[in-house]
């Protein structure tokens, strides 16, 4: 598989389809992102460890002149992120040519990933995040508020989660706005800082785990996002794991409901209240 991957990159470079291909390179014993421009370079291409590259790709593509494209070696989550960025008009369609690699079952388990594969490749086995004990503990346990409080308390407000997130590309961020998150306060107001971020990603998170990977305090942010994604899927009836949920929260959904309150008691005719 590795060699076919290198072949495809060489083909891409040889055909001048792209100005270069972004992938991982082993260099002097360390692995890091690299834009391969020469065919012979590709010998040093590696695919491990998992390293979400969508955001790096976005940064490079942004500065490319029109008509130029970049190749990107990426995983299922990266492809979803790129689709999302194209939909949000952050990347010109076709400016990022993806070369997908599916993840192993082991990697999927680490990433709590339901869909660790790329379109066109043999689907590999994913995991149901909500069945994982660690996630259940965080999102179902009766004492979870305490757990989350301890986690949120360790936040150093480095914005690493936002900066690494392939979806967070806003030029202005509410997390830096004193109206929402008190400036100069560390750790930040958790209800505001972390939950606002979660709400913003509720219908867009691709589950890449970049936020969690980049968090110096080890906050289990991915579980939060995955739990939200599941909640949205259950609410909208869109239970296809790979199905795009994007814009679910802005589009209109008709159902037969007429009157509703979440207490379930103020309904017409309930009338147990004297005047």
């Amino acid at each position: 598989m590795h060699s076919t991957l290198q072949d495809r990159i060489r083909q891409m470079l040889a055909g001048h389809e792209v100005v270069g291909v972004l992938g991982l390179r082993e260099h002097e014993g360390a692995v890091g992102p690299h834009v391969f421009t020469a065919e012979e370079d590709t010998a040093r291409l590696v695919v491990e460890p998992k390293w979400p590259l969508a955001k790096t790709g976005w940064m490079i593509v942004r500065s490319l002149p029109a008509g130029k494209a970049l190749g990107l070696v990426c995983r299922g989550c990266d492809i979803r992120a790129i689709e999302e960025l194209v939909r949000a008009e952050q990347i010109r369609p076709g400016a990022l040519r993806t070369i997908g690699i599916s993840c192993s079952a082991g990697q999927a388990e680490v990433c709590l990933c339901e869909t660790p594969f790329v379109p066109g490749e043999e689907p590999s086995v994913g995991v149901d995040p909500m069945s994982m004990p660690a996630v259940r503990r965080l999102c179902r346990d009766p004492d979870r508020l305490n757990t989350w409080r301890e986690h949120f308390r360790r936040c150093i407000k480095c914005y690493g989660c936002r900066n690494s997130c392939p979806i967070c590309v806003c030029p202005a961020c509410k997390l830096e706005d004193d109206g929402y998150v008190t400036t100069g306060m560390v750790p930040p107001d958790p209800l505001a800082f972390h939950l606002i971020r979660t709400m913003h990603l509720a219908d867009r998170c691709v589950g890449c785990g970049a936020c969690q990977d980049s968090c110096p305090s080890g906050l289990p942010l991915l579980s939060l996002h995955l739990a939200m994604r599941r909640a949205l899927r259950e609410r909208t009836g869109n239970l296809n794991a790979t199905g795009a949920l994007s814009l679910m929260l802005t589009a209109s959904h008709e159902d037969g409901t007429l009157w509703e309150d979440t207490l379930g008691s103020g309904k017409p005719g309930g009338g147990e209240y004297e005047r």
Partner: protein
Amino acid sequence: MNAPDRSDSLPILVVGAGVAGLTAAMDLAGLGVSVHLVERESHLGGQVMRLDKLYPSDHCGFCPVWTEGAACLSHPLITLHRNTSLEVLANEDGRVIALLATCPPAVDSDACIFCGLCLEACEAGGVRGTIKMQPAGLPSDPATQPVPYLNPVLCSRCGECRGACPTGAIDPGRLDKPPLEVRLPVADVIFATGFTERNPAMVPEYLADSHPDIFTAMDFEAWIAEAGPNAGQISRRLNGKTPRSIGFIQCVGARDQRFLSYCSSVCCMHALKQARWVKRRLPAASVAIFFTDLRAEGKGYEAYARAAAMEGVLLVRSRPGLVFRLPEEGGGSTLAVHYEDTNSRQLITAEFDIVVLNGGLTACPLPGQSGSDAGTGNACGFCQEPADVSRSVVQGSRAAALAAMRLARRTGGGP
């Protein structure tokens, strides 16, 4: 570009501020034509304000109308005459003159601040119950503020209330004043006088008026309205108990050679709406509609009727011949409806706790027309042809269009 000022030309008179009249007035004003809108009641919106819900959206009845009414009140080109009736429409030398008579109520609802001091003053000096808080206009109208109502029969004209009122809103002296008459030359008249519900007692076999649990459709609407006396709860008028069964009898006095030969057009959907609301609030109650032809021809109506049937509303093609009392254990009585079931082809006598009589809606007569034929009047809404809200507002706009076209022909220019 501003709307041309037509304030110098004669206004158009719109008689009736129900949904049709309101729409006609708003459309004309929107074209820059000045309008005088005459309403017999003290509130705008007409019969629709008495509806708790509208079919087929199940939208609250008053709310959309209330918005239109508010817009109408603040429109600079609309002059509103409340508590006013059109007495005579005369043709004098080719000019149409309307004679309006206004009876201002004892309480000026524009000045009243609803503080209730008049009540206290009256209770101290007068007969209890002489002044009551009640919504201006209709008891079930949720949009208007309850204002004091001075009962002209009980009132001793002592004037205590006037003394107590901080804003001078109440004046028992107004009770005895003759109506204020105004002569108004108008360019054109649009009638939108709407309908009234005929007393179903005219149909002897249905016992109307003789049992508290026999309602007319509009009474029942008020009885179960969320803004009504029971805050949306459904109970029997006889004893306050929850009804186990409710029967709706359609075409009462309508499509009937003895009374009104026509179809009132809105009652099938009206009954379906009430039946669905009953079912929503009392899922256990059995609800039946006895109809002649179920007329659900408008936009979304058939789907509404299907939904009603799905929810368990029993639809029976039948014209019951008789309603009578059945003695109930522990006193009182329920009602029996005697009908021929066209499905089983048997004569059935079914017991109902509540019977709603639906059908006899008659157009209000067009006022001011006796003796003179102004010849320019055109009618819209129910007074022209039985119509529901959606049809009435279209007819209202159409009447405005025709009046504007006549005006344009006369003055030789568009709006």
